[in-house]
């Protein structure tokens, strides 16, 4: 499955990473080599094999739906780049 420039630009947009034209061509080259290596997987017969998501086949543990955490907003916002009155500041989204 050949990787095209448009694939890299789409992935970069979905991943929210700014990529210049020069960088995009570098990524096409590097990612193509990686995907060529990955394509060896297509040679494995996996008919009837179930996908493995967790090495111990464990399932998600559940707990009672109860509030157990205390509010630590001030502590958690101390490492934020910009906050005001307990709110995270971002550029205007709605005009």
């Amino acid at each position, binding site marked *: 499955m050949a990787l095209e420039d448009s694939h890299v630009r789409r992935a970069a947009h979905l991943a929210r990473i700014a990529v210049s034209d020069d960088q995009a061509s570098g990524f096409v080259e590097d*990612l193509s*080599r*990686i995907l060529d*290596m990955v394509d060896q997987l297509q040679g494995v017969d996996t008919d009837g094999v179930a996908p*493995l998501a967790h090495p111990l086949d464990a399932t998600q543990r559940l707990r009672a739906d109860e509030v157990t955490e205390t509010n630590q907003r001030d502590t958690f916002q101390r490492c*934020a780049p910009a906050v005001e009155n307990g709110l995270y500041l971002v550029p205007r989204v709605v005009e």
Partner: protein
Amino acid sequence: MHDKTLTQIANALGSGELSSRELTEHYLQRIQQSGAILNSFISVTADQALEQADAADQARAKGTAGLLTGMPLALKDIFCTQGIKTSCGSRMLDNFNAPYDATVVEKLKTAGTVTLGKTNMDEFAMGSSNESSYYGPVKNPWDLTAVPGGSSGGSAAAVAAGLTPAALGTDTGGSIRQPAAFCGITGLKPTYGRVSRYGIIAYASSLDQAGPMARSAEDCAHLLNAMAGHDGRDSTSVARGVPDYTETLNSPLSGLKIGLPKEYFGEGLDPEVEKAVREAVSVFESLGATVRDVSLPHTHYAIPAYYVIAPAEASSNLSRFDGVRFGHRCDNPSDLIDLYKRSRAEGFGDEVQRRILIGTHTLSEGFFDAYYTKAQKVRRLIRQDFLDAFEDVDVLMGPASPTPAFDLGAKKDPVSMYLQDIYTIAVNLAGIPGISVPAGFVDRRPVGLQILGTHFAEAQLLNVAHQFQQTTDWHLQRPDFAEESA
């Protein structure tokens, strides 16, 4: 002082021969003297370390000390530490002070250990040479022109150089075992779920596991005792009792069945590394073990499967770095999308961006089944290879890496770097434990013997490694660097 193992230091602290303050001051001085040459630390926490050392000495005077009370340790900079920078080797987190401690950090603090600082690493643990760190590469104390391995390269180099008695690392595809091998120390990757991942900055959540890096298997056993156990805050942590890993260190090895996977001794293996590993295996035969060849037929597909699964998980995990809640934010964003895109482009280095893009691409519409579902199916076959092998043998042995440490700057192409992890990566896909122990040298660069066991066989791996270290002295050899800067 720094030529002692953690176990010897614990005994000296216990007998009152040494105080934690003396010990901590000694290591801090060594870090100050030689830290800049190796670049093994990102942050040194001298003030806090001395406070912890004094508290440990007081606890000992009061009779409330445990075995690790007052023991200096270094933490890979991937473990969140409250109030101390946790960078994960990235510009993205250069300004990040975690608001809480990782569970493992909390457990070690409770055990009374002293944190000397945070060690250098490949950015977001993505690398096999420690060259992708925002803080620059780490040098191998055995040869300053060689890499220390990665991603826990700073931890491995610091232990080997005698800048700390032991350190913590994490291992997603070999990141404890390969640097341990390259730096001539002992490093254990536990079974997936054995050690809590809470507060460890996530790379690939179904593969990541933390473990000890030290001078000997016995040292690792003491550390694993303090680290392992169930944690309600990590949903993949396993609720299963933790044995005392030191209790079985001296069990005899007569009758131990060792398997040598033929795929681990094939093309690409340095002949001198192979010689050292085979000599190590013969030591086990002299201890009463039997050796047979086994096969792990899907070995060849482990790297391709990993480079779908790990980047897929990484692309999801690293989406949290958005320039809004923590971490790097670009200047003067024009709108929200520009804020996200430029903050992430500026904050992440090349290798991290590559893996995020690979993961995003392979998970995207039209590619998901061909890549991700296929890789997960192959992952099951890889795990089955190991389970089948452990029907016939107790442990598997082979090289930790196909070559000794390579030169700084030698691997420019990402794929050639990835292929370095051929013997370690399948272990994470299968979730089994593995340990690397020093087993010789090639041109003064260390060789690591890797020993693998079935799920939750940590006690057995530590026993097997300890018995090897009772018979050999590879693990006690030090680089000249550690002597010269003494």
